[in-house]
């Protein structure tokens, strides 16, 4: 179309009316195009680029939303560096990430391998494993609180039945994060499973056949043929689940509210408390920017690493 316009322009080069017509045509194209894209574009950019810039300006101020804002430059960031509560929150977030990411990648891989076969009831199995995906954080929170209730919960009931000591679960500082990670896994296993299933179905059958003819058993042919083919998905799910883990908030809010003894207070929970409970908009924004920067670093790091390794995930 651009070339077309250029041709029209040169063709009518010596004739002013034609040139004017082509300019009008170009304007009409612009107007027509923007009529299509403007409403959605303005909404999306207005609610992302504009607030993102604003958040940066806020992070340079001390402001509670009422009194006049005070410009503090990098003050909030300097304060953050020596904020023990922030480090504690980062540690809790790290613990969740370390628990959840490997679990969800391995569970996705295992479930995909298990589900990637045509046997009776397979549709039923898939439905059962995929359906928790629709459960909201609020619903999952209530369910977790009951299932893992020390007195009435099914988890402790099972332990009692088999004669093992019962646990405090969400009420135990050492176990609360594990319970949250398990319930996240329940709701999100479908995501990694679907990605791995798709990748498994793309593994060339001829390669598996060839491995089998070479005398490899199923276990060997999985690790030497399928697994390398799955590398891009592994990188992708790991990075995506890591980004999601760093942003954990909902399930903490609906189960422990950061407790017991702040053991599940994550970075985003801390951010939310600072901004919307103590009304420290500037400090909250600084926390948000540090989180954003960290997310970018993780992403870029993994992308570079996987490029070096020759895994074409991106």
């Amino acid at each position: 179309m651009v070339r077309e316009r250029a041709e029209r322009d040169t063709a009518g080069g010596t004739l002013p009316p034609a040139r004017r017509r082509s300019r009008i045509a170009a304007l009409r194209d612009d107007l027509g195009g923007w009529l299509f894209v403007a409403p959605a574009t303005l909404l999306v950019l207005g609610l992302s680029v504009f607030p993102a810039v604003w958040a940066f300006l806020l992070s340079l101020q001390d402001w509670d939303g009422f009194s006049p804002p005070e410009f503090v430059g990098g003050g909030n960031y300097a304060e953050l560096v020596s904020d023990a509560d922030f480090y504690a929150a980062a540690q809790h977030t790290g613990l969740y990430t370390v628990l959840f990411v490997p679990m969800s990648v391995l569970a996705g891989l295992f479930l995909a391998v298990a589900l990637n076969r045509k046997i009776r009831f397979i549709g039923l199995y898939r439905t059962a494993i995929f359906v928790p995906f629709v459960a909201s954080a609020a619903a999952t929170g209530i369910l977790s609180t009951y299932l893992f209730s020390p007195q009435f919960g099914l988890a402790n009931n099972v332990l009692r039945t088999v004669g093992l000591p019962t646990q405090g679960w969400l009420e135990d500082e050492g176990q609360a994060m594990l319970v949250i990670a398990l319930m996240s896994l329940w709701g999100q296993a479908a995501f990694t499973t679907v990605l791995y299933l798709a990748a498994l179905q793309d593994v060339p059958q001829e390669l598996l056949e060839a491995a089998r003819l070479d005398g490899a058993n199923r276990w060997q042919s999985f690790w030497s043929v399928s697994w390398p083919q799955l590398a891009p998905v592994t990188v992708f799910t790991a990075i995506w689940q890591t980004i999601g883990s760093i942003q954990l908030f909902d399930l903490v809010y609906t189960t422990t509210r950061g407790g017991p003894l702040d053991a599940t207070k994550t970075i985003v929970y801390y951010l939310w408390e600072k901004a919307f409970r103590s009304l420290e908009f500037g400090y909250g924004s600084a926390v948000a920017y540090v989180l954003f920067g960290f997310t970018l670093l993780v992403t870029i790091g993994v992308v570079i690493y996987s490029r070096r390794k020759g895994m074409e995930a991106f």
Partner: protein
Amino acid sequence: MTAIITTATDAGASVAREQLGAQHPRHGRRRRPSAWHLVLAPIALLFVLPFAQMFLASVSPAKELIAFPPPFFPSRLDFSGYATLFAETDVLRWLANTVIVSASAIVSHLVLCSLAGYGFARLRFRGRTVGIFLIIATIMIPTQLLMIPTYILFARLGLIDALGAAIVPWLASAFGIFLMRQFFLSIPAEVEEAGRIDGANRWQVFFHLVLPLAKPALATLAIFTLLSSWNDLVWPLIAINNDDAFTLQLGLANFHSTRRTQWELLMAGNVVATLPLILFFLFAQKQFVATMTLSGLKG
């Protein structure tokens, strides 16, 4: 980034296709049942267990839920959890609010994102490249970064505490635009050329020729929007403090402090909030699976 998202969408679609075939395995000859049943059956049960507990507890007598130890199956059906829920809380209003939020989100997404997606994919105009680049770049911005300024912005616009606050952020999304653009890029240009030759303008071409082809993409977009808007918690939590404008998720999360020990009521509320999506999932599983990868991407 573009590549990742496309990969993920394709992955969802191909599993969805595969799944239909897998549900009807052909039994050419009688075989020994696979040993994988021993693995899959317990796992499937484990995944269904929390929902089973939810439904059973919602129809259990209150006393049995706090008995020691509580029975998994109720001794008799007791709907008092639902009765109290509907009588003492505003759950019906919250349900209506959630339906309003999700319905506006879906309609608006389908209209605005398909228009924009088509514009960016097929029309030529100045600012197009910058526009789509900015939109894709915003996918990388975490929502946590936007919460504070968006809250202040909405407060200044007088939207806070009104249902509008919950609706506006869902009217369009970068993902929606991107998804539709990728779809429109994939349809052959001949379709539109034929329409142009017949003298149709770009609006007629879009509405009569292109959009009818986009049904699968529109279905994916609708489910994606339904899932994310129905289940959203953080934004309503920040923007709405007024009971009348609560969404279901916010109401449920609030029970955490107000109805802590009324398990039959909490579980009944859970059923009200979750059952619509479970039923939707069971009826449109193929489309849901195709959407799952996308929703995961939302983070």
